[in-house]
């Protein structure tokens, strides 16, 4: 199964289930939206950049995200059937749900769930989201995150992510290796620490200004940029001792305010996505 066919199979499966097939968040890192939605999300982790040389580590990796809100009672079965579409039949494999709690401290979000292991390989993260932006969520969502490269490596039995066949005649490496090399070089060597520091400050100011102007989406976008600037500084080894906790705290504060503002705006609008579906818990 080619890399792109894995994505196509998941898209078809979740669309048939009734998910909105959305487009990824077009900024740095992923973000959650309500209801039933599925999309491929590039996820950037500067500190994991290895110049495209480590066979299992990437600056940017692709994950397929499914958010089901509220979490249906048969969500585990739904997930397992989606694997069936990828040719992974439970009877022929060893599939485990191993306890794993997910947490994003800069965004004040956490949940409980599992890492899903296929024959010893972690292929997905499965989370019942409990808090977002530092607030308890009234309606619990299930978030499924498929590690697309891991799944593809497992299906295609490739030791290196760069040897994956993306589409007939094209490998993952041919498409992404240069990008990996350049981003890693930037994050680990070339990034200008002073500029990143100024960017952090500027993004933060802009987020605060947008929060004051009651524009939740742009404010959240700048919050994510802030968080990414922090990740770059961290990868560059430029975050000092006392600074680290303080920068993370500032990101978390923005995330919390963004979430509060978003809730307030949705409430003013009368919870449009809840209309006619369920009553707010």
């Amino acid at each position, binding site marked *: 199964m080619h890399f792109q066919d894995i994505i196509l199979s998941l898209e078809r499966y979740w669309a048939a289930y009734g998910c909105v097939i959305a487009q990824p968040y077009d900024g740095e890192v992923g973000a959650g939206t309500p209801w039933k939605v599925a999309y491929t999300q590039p996820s950037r982790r500067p500190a994991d950049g290895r110049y495209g040389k*480590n*066979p*299992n580590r990437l600056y940017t990796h692709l994950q397929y995200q499914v958010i089901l809100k*509220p*979490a249906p*009672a048969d969500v*585990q079965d739904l997930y*397992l059937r989606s694997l069936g579409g990828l040719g992974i039949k*439970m*009877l*022929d*494999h*060893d*599939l*485990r*749900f*191993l*306890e794993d*709690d997910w947490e994003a401290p800069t965004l004040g979000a956490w*949940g*409980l769930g*599992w890492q899903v292991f*296929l*024959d*010893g*390989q972690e292929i997905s993260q499965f989370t*019942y989201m*409990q808090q977002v932006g530092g607030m308890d969520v009234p*309606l*619990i969502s299930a978030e499924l995150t498929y590690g697309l490269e891991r799944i593809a490596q*497992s299906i295609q*039995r490739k*030791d290196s992510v760069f040897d994956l066949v993306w589409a007939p005649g094209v490998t993952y490496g041919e498409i992404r290796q240069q990008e990996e090399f350049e981003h890693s070089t930037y994050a680990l060597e070339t990034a200008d620490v002073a500029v990143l520091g100024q960017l952090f400050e500027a993004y933060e100011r802009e987020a605060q200004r947008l929060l004051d102007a009651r524009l939740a989406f742009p404010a959240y976008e700048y919050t994510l940029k802030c968080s990414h600037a922090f990740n770059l500084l961290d990868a560059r*080894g430029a975050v*000092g*001792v*006392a600074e*680290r*906790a303080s920068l993370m705290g500032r990101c978390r504060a923005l995330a919390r305010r963004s979430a509060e503002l978003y809730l307030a705006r949705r409430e003013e609008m009368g919870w449009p996505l809840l209309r006619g579906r*369920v009553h707010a*818990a």
Partner: protein
Amino acid sequence: MPLKPTRHKRPRLVFEIGAEELPAAAAWAAARQIRELAPEALRAARITCGAVAAWSTPRRIVLAVEEVALRQEDAVREVRGPAARVAYAADGRPTPAAEGFARAQGVPVAGLERRSTPQGEYVFAILRSPGGPTIKALGEVLPALAAGLAFPKTMRWGPEAVRFARPVRWLVALLGREVVACRFADVEAGRRTFGHRALSPRPITVPDAHGFEAALRRGFVLLDPAVRRRRITESATRVARRAGGHPILDPDLLEETIQLVEWPEALAGRFAPEFLSLPREVLITVMQHHQKYFAVEDASAQLLPVFVAVRNGGSRGLETVREGNEWVLRARLADAQFFFEEDRKRPLEARIPELAGLVVHERLGTMAQKTDRLTRLAHLLGKALPLDVEKTGHLERAARLSKADLVTQMVRELPELQGVIGGVYARLDGEPAPVAGALREQYLPRGALLPRSDVGAYLAILDKLDLLLSALAAGFAVSGSQDPYGLRRAASGIVAIVLDRHLRINLRTFAGAALAETHPALDPARRSAAIDGTLDLLRQRLRTTLIEAGLSYDTVDAVLEAGADDLADAADRAHALWAFRRRPEFSRLYTAFDRAARIVPANFHGEVRPEGLEHEAERALLAALDRVEPLGPAGSRGGTARSSTDRGPGDAAGRYEQALQRLTAIADPVDRFFADVMVMAEDETVRTNRLALLSRVVQLMRPFADLTRVVAGEGKASPAS
């Protein structure tokens, strides 16, 4: 559907909580808790029953109760009415008061009973409410039991506010053949359960509680963890033997694995022998912690390029599963090899400057600062004990290198290797063996595992003592059950090591010197708070340790009251007193000291003037006092490390016990003194002199124990060690 009457007079009860995959620890805890809670809950609901058992798997918690009575026992309640003299006239006939009371309680007046109470004689109405059907009462008991299970981390998953370790998806509640109608977590109980996810995907209907385990077994679920344990160890041993070795059945991994599988099947896989060049610790950590495999050794305890994985399922597709696991492990080991080679490009020493970028805690500074403190403390401890020059050198070197592995790639990727990999790298760097050994042992004790080397033990103590002193100096507090910074754990680590090695040191003195060295600018109030706080924690842990060893609490408290700054000495005194208490002489000695202690005022000061002693009994007591040796510490106080021939507490405690024995020589003279002499004489000079004499009796015991804390007659009450 219509239910047939149950075949058993006293049927079996089965209650199953079906959940999405529970964390292993939660599965273990839930079965233990429900087994403990059920008997009391059933008793409170007046349900008589036979044996209670509980089991768990990753997907279910099951309670089984044998021979459950079909009806609750009757409830009997006694209500007190008027006093008997008010309720009955002189001729014994009931008065209107009695009639009114009986009417109000709904019983005939002739049924009232007269009972005597501490307040006098009263009439009572005996109210019996007959027990109802058990099955109805269980409808309330079972959901309450489920709700009573406690987990360290809980979650919500649906619209209900119920919290549980993971979502609850089905309930089975059967009394014999009948369903116990009840709900929990938005789920209605029934007779439908589920078998193994892959091997038995369809629901299973259970007709009768008596066949529950058999039904699950047909659904490829081994309910009893003991059975799964046996199956895992047997099949792991079998497949490892076929590969030429035996599995290292790490107990923690085994416990966890039991709760990851419902139908275990072990398989052996291989990895490239080249990876055997990695340190054994690295191989085992990758296999055990990350992949949950058992490592395999040959008869000479050498690792083989083989692992044993335990699959949750049968033998179908076993080849695919093996191949997949081998493939994953190869990638993991290739990563580890890469980290190892990268790390080995520079010696540990060269990494020390990087520790400046690693924060212990905002208020506790960086690992570089911790390293600096530890190195100074090593020097200080070398002087205090004292250690010879070589050992002090090793300890200082180990302290300096102790945290360097925290900035290696290996520890970043495999944090559980901290210390251990430092030891490996130090050895490969050519550091002296005691230094490498100490790095490995610095984070001990872990479970029952204690440092075995001297330098390792000293470093482990300093690491923890520095945490206590720094944290308390920074104003951290330990309160209630909260111990976020591990201060209690650090204190119990110190106590365990000090007692294990019978290390004689006055920790109050040493803590003072340590703080002066590491926190010279600390203000005096903070300094003494940090020292007191540290010694308090140590003393609490010592108390717990001794009581857990079987000593009675009052023995321990009496001894600790006389001082616990030297932990090993305090433990010796406690053991000696505990042993001596069970001898017949103890009560004589106790009485002598107790009488003296009661009569001498707490703040009394005064020397005995021998020429002022008028009475024969007084002079005899003084002579006896001059003959006995004081009950000081068995070793030099604040002192030296003991020679290796005096390692156990036994020797020193034994000497204390003998000294106590000799001290009984004081008992007769004290008795005679009290019999013949009036202590509180009119003449103040005489009185003061007599008190001074008794004060010397009290002083004899003071450095050993405060006997007034001993509860007379308690000596035999506690379980012997």
